[in-house]
């Protein structure tokens, strides 16, 4: 029983990314769609860290760190937008929010 090949990590990252895409496309609740975006960002982070291991350089981890910070900022603003949408329209269904102006 040897060690784990690095390509397994990359395949795991691909599977998680596609799951995020599936959630983004299929789900109808705004909050779940938003969580799917976070899942996709996490999958890409795993790729960055894997390649950082392969190349023995930590630049990939720095990029991953920046992605994390941007995701935190995006979550704060996005959830504030969701709050505003709910206050104005009283719904979280994504297909009921289909007009730009009330």
């Amino acid at each position, binding site marked *: 029983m*040897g060690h784990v090949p*690095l390509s397994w990590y990359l395949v*795991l990252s691909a599977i*998680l990314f596609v799951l995020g895409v599936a959630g983004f496309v299929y789900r109808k609740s705004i909050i779940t769609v938003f969580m799917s975006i976070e899942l996709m960002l996490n999958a890409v982070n795993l790729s960055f860290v894997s390649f950082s291991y392969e190349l023995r350089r930590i630049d990939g*981890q720095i990029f*991953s760190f920046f992605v994390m*910070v941007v995701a935190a*900022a995006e*979550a704060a603003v996005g959830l504030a937008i969701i709050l*505003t949408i709910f206050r104005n329209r009283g719904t979280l269904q994504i297909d009921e929010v289909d007009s730009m102006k009330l």
Partner: protein
Amino acid sequence: MIDTILFIIFAILAIVSGFNLVLQKHPISSALSLIGVMGSLAVLYLLLGAEFLAMAQMIVYGGAVMVLFVLVIMLLNAGREKGSTKSWFAQIAGLPLLLCLVALLGFLIRAILPPLRSVEFGSWVGGTAEHIGQLLFTTYLLPFEVISILILIAILGAVVLARKELD
């Protein structure tokens, strides 16, 4: 040996939690599944020698971001999502297209990349706080400063967007 077992356990946990996120109808179940994904990814980062990132993943993602999500779900009293009409295209072609996407990515990983290393736990620990900090404050100093401005703007934006209108 131990790293193979850990990888298999946490990879399966991540995939199962990911499926659970997509399939659950209640947002709070999806949020808890997302915490499962993030925790298992933190363990995988640790296996890949990214100590600092594993801790940041747990604190920033598993802690701060998910608390924000759960708080908003609680605040909005978000219940089960209602079933709605899906387009015929999504119903017919959605799943095959997603399978095509994952097959394509797997093929690219297999075919394009040169032979990669195998992961040996502890053989390379590059991502300690010392190394990350050294790189962050020398090579990547400008992006680091810019991202602090980004966070400031995000805070202001969140406050402006979420406040109640006073009239």
